[in-house]
């Protein structure tokens, strides 16, 4: 995994105050970006990667990143593609022209989710207050991505650094997810 992993793509929203800023963990809202759900059969995966400018990962739970692009494995025939907000049309055109009539589905889900970056030495601890996945670096190395649940809400988590995670939830679940993350972090402030 490269050092620039997603850093130029998933960035804190400059216009928003941090949701939480403790010494050991902070929660930052992510600025808008383009998100696609891409579905296709195996035969089309290479071509799609070439069209997006990044190979689509085929190893489960992994991600690939390049400048201004990221591809996240969501399932054997499903990827989440990330790009800067302004590149939405470019991705649509790119995939459309490369794949042509090869069966595939590209759906704009840019605003379906909202994302926060949870970062700090207690980031994994905080996520594990509601996520049952083993988030140790051996089991969940940088670059790993998965859909899971945080308490009672479906979320996607993506490790973008040893102590940094992107947590995505559907927009209407974000109040719950962010609210609980903040509540569960409360005890870290205690002496």
């Amino acid at each position, binding site marked *: 995994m490269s050092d620039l992993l997603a850093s130029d793509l998933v960035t804190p929203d400059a216009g928003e105050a941090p949701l939480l800023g403790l010494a050991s963990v902070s929660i930052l809202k992510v600025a808008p970006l383009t998100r696609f759900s891409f579905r296709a059969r195996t035969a089309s995966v290479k071509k799609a990667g070439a069209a997006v400018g990044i190979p689509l990962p085929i190893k489960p739970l992994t991600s690939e990143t390049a400048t201004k692009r990221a591809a996240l494995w969501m399932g054997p025939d499903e990827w989440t593609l990330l790009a800067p907000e302004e590149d939405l049309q470019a991705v649509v055109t790119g995939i459309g022209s490369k794949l042509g009539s090869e069966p595939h589905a590209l759906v704009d889900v840019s605003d379906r989710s909202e994302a926060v970056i949870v970062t700090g030495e207690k980031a994994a601890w905080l996520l594990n207050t509601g996520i049952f*996945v083993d988030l140790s670096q051996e089991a969940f190395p940088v670059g790993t991505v998965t859909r899971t649940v945080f308490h009672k809400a479906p979320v996607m988590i993506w490790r973008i650094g040893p102590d940094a995670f992107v947590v995505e939830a559907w927009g209407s679940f974000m109040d719950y997810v962010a609210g609980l993350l903040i509540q569960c972090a409360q005890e870290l402030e205690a002496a």
Partner: protein
Amino acid sequence: MSQPFRTEKGGRIDRAEELTFTFDGEELHGHAGDTLASALLANGVHLVGRSFKYHRPRGILTAGSEEPNALVGVYRKSDQTPNLRATQVELYDGLQAISQNRFPSLGFDVGAVNDLLSPLFPAGFYYKTFMWPKSFWDRVYEPIIRAAAGLGKPPKNPDHDTYGNLYAHCDVLIAGSGPSGLAAALAAAETGAKVILCDEQAEFGGSLLSETSATIDGKDPAVWVAYAVARLGAMDNVTLLPRTTAFGYFAHNFVALAERVTEHLADPDPRLPRERLWQVRAKEVVIAAGAIERPMVFPENDRPGILLADAGRTYLNRYGVKVGHKVLVATACDTAWQAAFDLADHGAEVVGIIDLRESPPESLVAIAAARGIRVEAGCVVTGTLGRKRVKAALLGRLMTSGQVASGGQIECDALLMSGGWTPTVSLFSQSRGKVVWDAEAGAFVPGKSVQKERSTGAANGLYGLEASLADGYAAGEGAARAATGKSAAIAHSRTSGGEAGSGGTLGALPHDRNASRVKAFVDYQNDVTAKDVKLAVREGMQSIEHIKRYTTTGMATDQGRLSNMNALQIASGALEKPLTDVGLTTFRQPFTPTTFGLFAGISRGDFFDPVRKTPSHDWAVAKGGLFEDVGQWKRAWYFPENGEDMHAAVERECRTVRKSVGLFDASTLGKIEVVGPDAAEFLERMYTNPWKKLAPGRCRYGLLLNDAGYITDDGVIGRLADDRFHVTTTTGGAASVFATMEDYLQTEWPDLDVWITSTTDQYAVAAVQGPKAREVIAPFIEGIDLSAEALPHMSVREATFCGVPCRLFRISFTGELGFEINVSRRHGKMMWETLAGEIEKHGGAAYGTEAMHVLRAEKGYIIIGQDTDGTVTPQDAGMTWAIGKKKPDFVGKRGLERPDLKAENRKQLVGLLTRDPKIKLEEGAQVTILENPATGTPAEGHVTSSYFSPALDRTIALAIVKNGHALEGKTLYVPMPEGSIPVEVAGTVFYDKEGARLNV
């Protein structure tokens, strides 16, 4: 302050830090490091509670979580937590504790009359007594029994505290930190394995903390504990969890731990949770739960001042408390002798050691002799004297005949007893392992492992310090190797002293008393005596499971850890069957009582369940809108203005929509994007309607059935392109429709080139409905022609709204000209506020779900789940028009061919008009043919929807009625308490039957 039973030195308490606490209002003192139990004993307080059934005075019996008697209430933040075990409550300054199950006071308790009346309360008393007269159960018996039952008072207020949760994974989880547990942790940690070590007590070390007569590596065992804990604490791969009970062992090595985070603090930081639930997935589990001592079953073995011998030793060596000044020790095994020696060495008078065995080990007898302690071998306690504290014990001498001869009495103010040791196999049993009888140990020990666990040390029936350490090292090494494949060498510590003792007894001891008049307790907490167990057998109970339920022995919070073995032996004797044939009951979760708060965790208040809000939510709140819950969604219900009540607000909203224009938030409807070359084919197979000929840019109402042929969902589907559809579902059905589609795609039709993506949260949707709808949206829409010719009813276009891309549907759920605009959720607020401003110019209003329901009912549009109940077919609903007759197949097609779905007499959806237009029917009311049917007459159907319709200026209703379609024009009745309401059966469309208002 005087603590008359405190030793002069020794113990692990901080003598420099004196703490003040109260018990039943009396101010007492203790030290940091005390438990409530040890502090009470230091003050000479043994009487701490009244027993459950007979209200007998009871004292502290143990020093651990198995304590059956010392259940207290502790006040904090002006509320009380009942039933805490005083042996586990750590003392803090200002602690307020109260005793339970006594009235008016602990010393004088009127309930104690039960003890005198005890011949009237045999085992099975309730079953025998309250059977008749039958009618008395509800009115008399149950209320009285309920009032008398239970220990402690439930807290009155909502829980002040918060509770944490943490999911964790580890290679080796070790439950228990005695010699075996610590050794296992050291050995496992050395390999680099991820280790979690938990112990229910405040300090690690278990029995080592009370062991003063042995050494490890030449040092006091407690020093070795400190070294081991420091070493473990310094390792990154080790998590140490004191005050943490492994209370549940579930499938796949999933173990639940309860960590008490702040309970021991006088003034905890409110940001800290009171407790934390650890949900641990361990590759290997080491159970080092130790063993607990068994009480001896002799008459009056329950008086305050009678404790287990090891508890007496623990109070002395760990807490610096003598349980009495004149202590009698009664035992059947070696270990209790050491308690006597330690007490004597601390200046207590040991008035005697009474050993059941004819010839106890000579080495022990010699040590006793050296201390001048009287030893009686072949001797038992046959009774005790004293009411609120033991005063003396009656002795009995065992004769070769098996009879007991009186051996006089001996004065004492405390009696320590030991019937031997019982391995704690609870967690092993929870892991679904079966215990096996170890004749040599005289105990049930863990048998074959079912999960990836191993028991070590005393939990495995293995005693003696050297053996426990060695077994622990081996268990830790073995577990780490099994989990990680790695091993490491670790220097094993050497011990001296702490040898395993021998001896032990099971069951009731012989005595020379009148057996029918004395009580020898087997289960202290549930007040079960040896007599009760024998009675259960006499009355026909043979299985231990039946005996347990009949007598309630083993059904207290310790699940029989103290009582099971004695009860089993008594039953075995009465049944004249070997003990192993009587069986052992199963231990279940939780190991010790666990708070509800721990399980509830964050699921309370605002976070009980996710609350999903739409982008118009804040606007609706500011507008004074009321909300209703639809699944997890908050939907605006209605928007009262100028003090309107609900009826007036809804009526105004409905009239506004029909007259000018209304604005409605439809964001919660489920949305699924179906994409791929086979998209039309897929929908053709899922929905009843035909899709292949639907032109891009057009919409169609879709009806979804289940395999059985019943309606499960509906919604409008727009075709955006040949290979792309925008499907809408009901709000509540969104998730299940998506899952059903995915299920069919993956299991039935994997060959189809089509994929589905949920877009529910991608779009915010505003419905603009009413004659002026076009005028309202026109200023903001660009890129398309909105005219009726270019954009007819049931069309969809991609356009922009205020420059933002949108999907514009011309559809209607009101019967009026209508548009639904989909923009990205991010722009939903902007869209809503723009439109809300615009409709005002046209005399329009926002409307909520209630007005929406009325408007759709006027048009006969059904609501899934309200007008259907999972047994309604398209024919029943009068919707055969929605079925593609020429289609070869669709989900539910074969179901619809079932004879019972084609039969006569099915219930069908109809309209109902009350004869009196002002009467509004109750939804759910029954519909009958006769005005006053005889009681028991089956109903013809029921009312599904009922409203006042402003457009018709009368009430309307929808109902499911048997053969309803054929009854149009006929009069039926809706019987109500105030009288039967005559109704006329009508069609389901009440307003604008021709649909003229839609096509403008």
